[in-house]
């Protein structure tokens, strides 16, 4: 492991920029991830390892996060996906980029719209299934009332982004510190 120098002089650009992230990725499965990425090995870490990271393991949306950022849509992430994920969730990512990915995270059925069932799933994950049926229904109705601008009964990306623009806390809550 004393070859940090060789890694830093390796050809790959992002190793110079994100060494910390690379080591976190490697620490998840040292036997799978090689130290030398010059030949771009095709290494994918399974979702179970990603979901066990301390930053993610208590997040109710960790499965969706992994699915959105992974190449295969199942949550198994390559190093590129891993870097993508943490760069979007960092504090320097612009608001629109975060809003785009947040929308995809909350869109459980991947149909590019947040419909009522997606909202219900979001709410239940947020409150650990502790709200009653009535309350869930009331809150979903209110959310769609407030945010749906084109009146089609579900939230499109534009509706979502329009609503996020008005939320001053979004940038600070949609942020994982690593």
């Amino acid at each position, binding site marked *: 492991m004393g070859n940090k120098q060789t890694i830093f002089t390796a*050809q790959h650009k992002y190793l110079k920029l994100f060494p910390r992230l690379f080591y976190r990725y490697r620490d998840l499965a040292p036997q799978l991830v090689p130290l030398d990425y010059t030949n771009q090995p095709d290494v994918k870490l399974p979702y179970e390892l990603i979901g066990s990271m301390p930053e993610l393991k*208590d997040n109710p949306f960790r499965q969706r996060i992994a699915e959105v950022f992974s190449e*295969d849509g199942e949550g198994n992430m390559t190093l590129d996906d891993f870097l993508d994920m943490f*760069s979007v969730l960092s504090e320097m990512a612009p608001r629109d980029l975060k809003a785009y990915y947040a929308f995809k995270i909350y869109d459980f059925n991947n149909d590019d719209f947040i419909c009522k069932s997606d909202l219900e799933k*979001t709410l239940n994950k*947020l409150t650990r299934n502790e709200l009653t049926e009535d309350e869930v229904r009331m809150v979903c109705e209110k959310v769609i009332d407030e945010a749906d601008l084109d*009146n089609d009964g579900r939230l499109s990306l534009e509706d979502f982004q329009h*609503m996020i623009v008005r939320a001053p*806390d979004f940038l600070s*809550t949609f942020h994982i510190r690593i």
Partner: protein
Amino acid sequence: MASKPQRHDSSNSDPGEQQALRLRRVSSPVSTNNYPLFNWSSTPAGEDEEGNSRPHRDLRSIPLPMALKRAVRQVQQMHVPVVSRMESWKRNKTKSLRKLKDNAREFHYIFTLWSKSLQKIGGNFGGGVQSYFVFLRFLVVLNFFSFLLIAGFVLIPSIVFRSVGTTLTNSSGPEKCMNYDPNPQGLVVFYNYFLNLLSGTGFMEYSYLFYGYYNNTMAGDRTFSYNIPLAYLFTVVFYFAFCLICIIARMGTAARVAVATGGSAGGNYSMMVFTGWDYGCMADQATKLKQKTIHYRLQVDLEEERIQKRAAALTSSQKIILYSIRFLMCFIAFGLIIASFYGIFVATNFSQEKSGQEGFLGLFFEYLPSIVITTGNFLVPLLCDQIALIEQYAPSTTIILALLRAVFLRLVSLGVLLFTLWRQITCEGQTNSGTCKLCQYNYEVYPCWETRVGQEMYKLTLFDFLINIAVLALVEFPRRMVVDNSSSKVAQWVGRQEFMVPSNVLGLVYGQTVVWTGALFCPLLPLINTIKFVFLFYCKKVTLFYNCRPALKTFRSTTSTFFFLVVLLFGWGLAILVMIYSLAEIHPSMGCGPFRFFPYMWSIVPTSFYSLSKTTQEFLFFIGSQAFSIPLFVLSCVVMCYFIALTSVYGKSVALLRAQLKLEGRDKQFLVKQIEELSRLQIPKHNAGVQD
């Protein structure tokens, strides 16, 4: 994070890259959406100045996978525009400037005080509690820089020029007024040192800590002169201006966020659902509590709606009863506050009467006003909370009302203390009667009244700090130990304590107001306050992590920052009133201080003014004259009107755009319906056509 990646040989990794891209495109079901936000055919125009940087920035904000972004960047970099030498020099300059800015930002991150602690607090307890600690950090930095200001212009010159220097005025006053001997006589009992430390008397009184020690001298020779009293005055005035500018600058950033997001015009539920979860939450405990918080907030909002519906459905007789109850309760709350003011008044009078006493009893009498203020600040809000239960306002209104009452109580109780002191110093305002006749102030009881006022402020600061530590050690830690170890129902019902952000913030505002009020009389008070706040930070952090559970009722962090600063401004306003009055109305002590023998503290300014050169005098006269100040005033009014007009125009355009967005949605629906109808009409025709 992603600064420009190095350009490397495209030859040896291009095929690999492209192959990876191809594989990516084919295999993932998720990426069937064609990234509509990126225009593949766009190329950087060669003519614009930051041509190299703009596509780079655009690329960062577009949601593409990393490999695709890298490929695009390679393609862009291959379009090397042909530019003149001037252009390329400019581009290099902007690049290096940006690098410098990024480095400066990183540098700033490293040196920001306590940033890791604040992150930890925010992750575990939420944004509301974090905003309290951010506010505390702001006050620490403000006090520290104020101390540097005062040290640089008042303290160090005083120390350096202590022995040299000529007195400014040759006039003197009556013998009796100049009688000031603060040094204790004879043998002093050893514990007196401790008592003196706590009350600022004895060996501490005649020291750089208080106003009375500074000299009425002007040091220097022909080439350089330093007028210490003038420096003292201007430093204090500038200190107030500096604090005001810092607070307003900070309010500006908080307000800008609120204005940009259009206020909280609706959208509460959607915002809570989509932005309520803090992805930075790490501990398992914290996430469970976060979920409970969100659950609680949703329930509270739903409850508020139910209450509003119920309130709207009240009959008129019920309404009358409710309003009369509210009026009565308001009256009672007001009466409680007035009662506490009277208590402070009496206590201060009593304490001043007994000020000569020795020993621990003397210490008790010295601290009596602080004790009464603290007791009042503790009891009255509790009673007001009980009153609020009867008043039955909506929960959000109750919180705001409680905060306003508490702010009023705290700041005005300080005002009552100061008023009492004033009465005694100036013989109830009549400086030509009784004991005040000789020196224009009560020289018998207060040979050096500024030092006495400084001592009172010093005692208030110290007492506030001691009470905080005492509450920590004697109430919070034992409470946690009792709750954790006993299984009785009472203990479980009482529960671990919550970190109450509003009351803690009011404590900070009160402490800072005391420091501002006392800065004129006790120049080292900002330093003492800096040390006190630093200790307070660590103590509060310790108690937060060991004794508290996260609050269920969270405080919104963006609006709360603005509110804290507004309350801080109230405190600043009170302090500046005191300062202006002391500078302009009360006769300075003749036995001590840099302003002895002047009729008012401010009169040093005209005196020094006439010793300036003729041209400077004329210039300053011109600035103060009407010919200059009225056009300046008119100009600033015009500028202010311009900004107000700009704000209203932006607000109107935001509202118009929102309405337009809604209309577009409806248009789209209409068109879609039309298409559906037309297609329905077409299909039978088409079928008829086919059959034929």
